[in-house]
């Protein structure tokens, strides 16, 4: 009874069907969430005056970090000329486009008037605003990687390389501007400073490695992986381990400098993660699943065991999702005025995402999977033999 097809290709295994089903369910949940948002507006979300950015912003960041990361790792091949990495290029860039689009979809449900943004970003741009640069550069980046993908499909290496370079520059610039959206805010000491723009780039590279490992684990779940791919993946899992090590080191200094002098605003925010209301998310997800466990797994196997590397990547991606949430939410929980109604007995503000917000997040994941399944059906994402 296997008659389901997409673009003429048969859906021919239980595995495919399971993916489709999961995707369908996630998309459906997302649509319900979206409908509720369209009816109720921001009232359907748990964001409020003192905590105006919630899980949709952090999920947007999760997606665009993924996109930048995929672009960074794939550019090792066709931009920086490390031949070995060329085999993953097409699939990585396809996913970079998909994660970026999914990110845009999620943030469109958070920003009050996304279409107004398109108009006034052009009519009355504010060149001092990091959000303006981020939006504009991500727009450019999307154009570049779309073209890059097109040239890859046409096996035009020269132009794919040029556009890859353009995409690399626009992607890094856009992504560090996203860090600057937070880093520019003097009002929020825990976010403020050059740390976030830099950290975002590093954590993007980590994410890029993890996603590539996952994509190929799924791609070759039922077929033997070609040697040149498994060799590349071993290199990527080693790179992944090294970058995780550096990320842990970044994190350690962020923690130490935040608590060292007890500076107001910074200290309280860091303590929310270290021992406060979000400590489960920080220690359990961000540190343990996101960094420590994958780092140990990869070091213990020298990155050679791709099964273990896949688990490390999965663990890391789950942790990184929470890492974004921690970053966005924690920065807002220290109140600017201690006597507002929303401040609890602990002296902190609080935020828990609403069901609608969670539904839209799941929908974003569904959209990402859906686009990826479609991309696999319409394009050949495997490396060309030449």
């Amino acid at each position, binding site marked *: 009874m296997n008659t389901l097809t997409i673009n003429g290709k048969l859906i021919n295994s239980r595995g495919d069907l399971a993916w489709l089903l999961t995707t369908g369910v996630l998309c459906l949940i997302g649509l319900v969430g979206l409908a509720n948002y369209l009816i109720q507006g*921001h009232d359907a979300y748990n964001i409020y*005056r003192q905590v*105006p950015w919630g899980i949709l912003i952090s999920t947007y960041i999760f997606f665009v970090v993924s996109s930048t990361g995929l672009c960074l790792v794939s550019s090792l091949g066709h931009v920086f000329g490390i031949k070995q990495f060329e085999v993953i290029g097409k699939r990585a860039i396809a996913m970079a486009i998909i994660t970026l689009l999914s990110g845009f979809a999620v943030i469109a449900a958070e920003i009050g008037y996304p279409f*107004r943004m398109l108009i006034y970003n052009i009519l009355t741009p*504010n060149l*001092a*605003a990091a959000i303006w640069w981020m939006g504009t550069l991500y727009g450019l980046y999307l154009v570049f990687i779309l073209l890059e993908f097109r040239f890859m499909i046409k096996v035009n290496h020269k132009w794919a390389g040029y556009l890859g370079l353009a995409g690399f520059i626009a992607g890094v610039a856009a992504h560090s501007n996203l860090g600057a959206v937070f880093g520019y*805010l003097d009002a929020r000491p825990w976010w403020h400073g050059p740390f976030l723009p830099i950290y975002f780039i590093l954590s993007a590279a980590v994410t890029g490695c993890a996603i590539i490992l996952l994509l190929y684990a799924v791609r070759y779940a039922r077929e033997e992986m070609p040697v040149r791919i498994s060799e590349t993946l071993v290199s990527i899992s080693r790179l992944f381990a090294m970058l995780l090590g550096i990320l842990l080191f970044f994190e350690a200094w962020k923690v130490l400098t935040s608590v060292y002098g007890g500076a107001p605003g910074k200290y309280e925010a860091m303590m929310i993660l270290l021992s406060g209301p979000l400590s489960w998310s920080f220690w359990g997800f961000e540190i343990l699943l996101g960094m420590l466990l994958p780092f140990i797994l990869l070091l213990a196997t020298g990155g050679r065991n791709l099964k273990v590397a896949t688990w490390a990547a999965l663990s890391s991606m789950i942790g990184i999702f929470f890492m974004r949430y921690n970053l966005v939410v924690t920065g807002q929980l220290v109140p600017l*005025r201690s006597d507002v109604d929303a401040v609890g007995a602990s002296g902190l503000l609080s935020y828990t995402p609403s069901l609608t917000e969670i539904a839209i997040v799941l929908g974003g994941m569904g959209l990402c999977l859906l686009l990826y399944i479609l991309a696999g059906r319409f394009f050949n994402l495997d490396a060309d033999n030449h």
Partner: protein
Amino acid sequence: MSQERKKRWVMVVDPDKCIDCKACDVACKRENKIDAGTDRQVYRNWITSKGVEGTFPHLKQRFEPSQCQHCDNPPCVKVCPTSASYQTPEGLVAIDYKRCIVCATCILACPYDARFKSPQTKVIDKCTFCAHRIAQGKLPACVDTCPTKVRVFGDLNDPDSEVSRLLARHHYYVLKPEKGTKPSLFYLS
């Protein structure tokens, strides 16, 4: 013949006179048609209780009314991608509501928690210093209504204005000077 001097609107606040009657809050909401409904986070101005000061029997309860500071170096304006938040030549920080995309970055950039999303207009809102009243030569509604005359409004560029004279005669402070925002609300101390 001389061209009219550029104005710099500021407010001088004497917190010692504040009795926490919240008439300013009510007047502001009426004047600017803000219906908070049940949402306790909807307001343009507020009163902070600074607690009890002194030792018995010389105790004193202190209140500090506040609102958007109409900063001379406003971070909310810098972060606004569409230039919806802007500064007028007279030092008012204003919002062009039709350009606001509700990205909420300005809310996070403001060190004073002065901004919120209006349930009526569905975009970001905050104190305007009642710019529409100033244009008619009237005082902001909160200044007009305050029974104990906590708030004095005027042109700091005019040396004879009441605000200029008050600031010349008294010690004063501004809120969160370390943020470098250069507020236009001055508190007498």
